[in-house]
């Protein structure tokens, strides 16, 4: 423990979110993200004016669409759930300075596995079927992530490129599956049969789409927090993220940790995909995800990579997604505006909030203590 403290002692004082507390008050930690949000929305307003749309109208429609009535709010929560899972996955990987841009593909891999199993579980006892479906989803996502982890650890392949390539591969795999082996019995549309009723997560408060996936997301977020900040593994992953070379020097098993981190990250995203199938869509089809895996990056950064903070940031982005449909109807602005907002939030966050990417090369020059994060030249260290 002391060697880690010695390493970090000459770094700037505690970063917000680094250990769920630290030396700064919670309020001070909230300030930069809030400021980033304000500036981002201001810039987006300018873009809207340039397009001839009314910012007040657009944002008003967004808010009304997301929070206008309890049904809308329920749908906001439903739309935020996959963002929680992918956001958790991304935060975990980023904490280890592994740039997992592949949450999209990992989510699809999980959804694919969940569907493949789920359609065969007719008649099974419900808790078992659900556990099986979610478990397979997590495992598939873990595999999808671990492949990139292995490629990075043993072949030095940049994980940004490998995860993005696997995203494209996952999309094609799903496409093939729903046109081929998994296509519905009638063959009418390129989508799977609905999964067995026993494999579906419990729903409540109909006609909303709220499900047991939501308390699951809360539990998983809490578990992720405990893992990152209260276990040895989490500590090692964070140490890996802050200074890869130092971690190697002090004997941490770099390669295994890399594969482990990418596997865990993928598992979380895959679980998100499985939950989406089991609780919301009940079937697999193309374009299942409107970009949750990429959105998760903004979610994770705004949360300072802290698993508990991912919950409110995922809710924010879920609200944006939910409101965007209403915004299109009311104002004629394309729903992809939310991606402009997302991108702008991240830009501004990076510029004003140095703690956003904790342990991931936040930019402070530090000579010998500069994290190797972001440095693509990896000395292959035996571990």
């Amino acid at each position, binding site marked *: 423990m002391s060697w880690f403290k010695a390493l970090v002692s000459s770094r700037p004082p505690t970063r917000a979110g680094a250990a769920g507390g630290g030396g700064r008050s919670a309020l001070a930690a909230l300030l930069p993200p809030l400021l980033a949000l304000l500036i981002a929305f201001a810039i987006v307003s300018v*873009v809207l004016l340039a*397009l*001839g*749309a009314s910012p007040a109208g657009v944002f008003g429609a967004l808010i009304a669409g997301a929070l206008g009535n309890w049904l809308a709010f329920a749908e906001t929560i439903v739309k935020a759930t996959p963002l929680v899972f992918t956001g958790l996955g991304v935060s975990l990987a980023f904490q280890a300075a592994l*740039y997992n*841009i592949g949450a999209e593909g990992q989510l699809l891999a999980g959804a694919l596995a969940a569907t493949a199993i789920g359609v065969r579980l007719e008649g099974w006892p419900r808790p078992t079927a659900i556990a099986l479906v979610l478990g397979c989803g997590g495992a598939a996502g873990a595999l999808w992530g671990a492949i990139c982890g292995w*490629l990075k650890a043993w*072949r*030095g*392949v*940049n994980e*940004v*490129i*490998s995860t993005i*390539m*696997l995203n*494209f*591969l996952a999309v*094609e*795999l799903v*496409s*093939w599956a729903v*046109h*081929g082996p998994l296509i519905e019995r009638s063959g009418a549309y390129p989508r799977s049969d609905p999964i067995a009723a026993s494999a579906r997560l419990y729903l409540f408060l109909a006609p909303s789409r709220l499900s047991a996936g939501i308390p699951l997301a809360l539990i998983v977020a809490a578990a992720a927090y405990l893992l990152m900040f209260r276990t040895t593994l989490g500590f090692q992953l964070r140490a890996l993220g802050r200074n890869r070379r130092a971690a190697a020097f002090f004997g941490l098993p770099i390669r295994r940790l890399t594969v482990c981190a990418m596997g865990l990250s993928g598992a979380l995203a895959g679980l998100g995909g499985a939950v989406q199938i089991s609780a919301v869509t009940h079937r697999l089809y193309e374009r299942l995800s409107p*970009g949750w895996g*990429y*959105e998760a*990056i*903004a979610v994770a*950064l705004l949360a300072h990579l802290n698993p508990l903070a991912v919950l409110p940031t995922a809710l924010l982005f879920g609200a944006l997604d939910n409101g965007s449909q209403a915004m299109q109807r009311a104002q*004629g*602005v*394309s729903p*992809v*505006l*939310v*991606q*402009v*907002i*997302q*991108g*702008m939030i*991240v*830009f501004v966050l*990076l*510029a004003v909030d140095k703690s956003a*990417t904790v342990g*991931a*090369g*936040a*930019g*402070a*020059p530090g000579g010998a203590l*500069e994290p190797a*994060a*972001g*440095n*693509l*030249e*990896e000395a292959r260290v035996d571990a």
Partner: protein
Amino acid sequence: MLEAFAVSMIQTSAPLLLAALGELLVEQSGIINIGIEGVMLTGAFFAMAGAYFSDSVAVGLLAALVAAVALSAIFALLAINFAVNQVVAGTALNIFAVGLTGVFYRRLFGITGQALTVRTLAPVALGPLARIPLLGPALFDQNLLVYLAFLLVPVCSWLLFSTRYGLGLRACGERPEAADALGLAVYRLRWQALMVSGALTGLSGAYLTLAYTNTFVEGISAGRGFVALAIVIVGRWEPWPMAASAILFGAAIALQFGLQALGTVMPYQLFLALPYLLTLIVLGLLGGQAQAPSALGEPYARP
């Protein structure tokens, strides 16, 4: 038929090569721009928009240049002056570009369902050379952007490895602190590299809408920016090997259509996945970032 494939192969590799050469300059200066996918998409859209409203290819190209350079400037500001995490900034750039082009596209053109077509760049045959069997049309009967892409290979090679400027640029990528101490304007050199890269990537995007096809669809870049990133790595950060890799990946993309036309029993998704799978396999086999500029991706802030 082989002749047609050769033509197609060169046509698909040209935009990859343009973007990759731009990225090479940037990476040699020490910055990694994951966002070239977004810049390419932006170039593609604004090229189409410019050509559509002016009925002129030249205006389209100019619009693409301006838009792409402007977008790259946002990234440059963040990566250089603010010294932020470059991978994150690049990813945000991609998301932003998808949103920006989508919003503008639907606002300007609506969802008509019919493809909006524009004029395209005509191929310029280089005299009798174009009539050489097999390789003639592929190498000597292409449009200007293709010639530009391949001509830039020796130019970049000379610039980077035979001039003082190139040496200074590479110094920024190897050890910016030392370059700074020696009096090199690290920020300025990196900005220059990013601006040139923005222009080249914008042109590569413009190629997609003004030459390769004659229209714009959302997501037209389809990951080509990432393939360009891979080309830089596979080409070991040197222009000539990069040109060879670009042709290889271009062939993989061109192969999609060729194999589909053959009507084999294999699922078409496999062909769509081919370029990405190939990228992954080639990177995995060749491995290593050993030849990367030493300070690549490390934010550098002037003390």
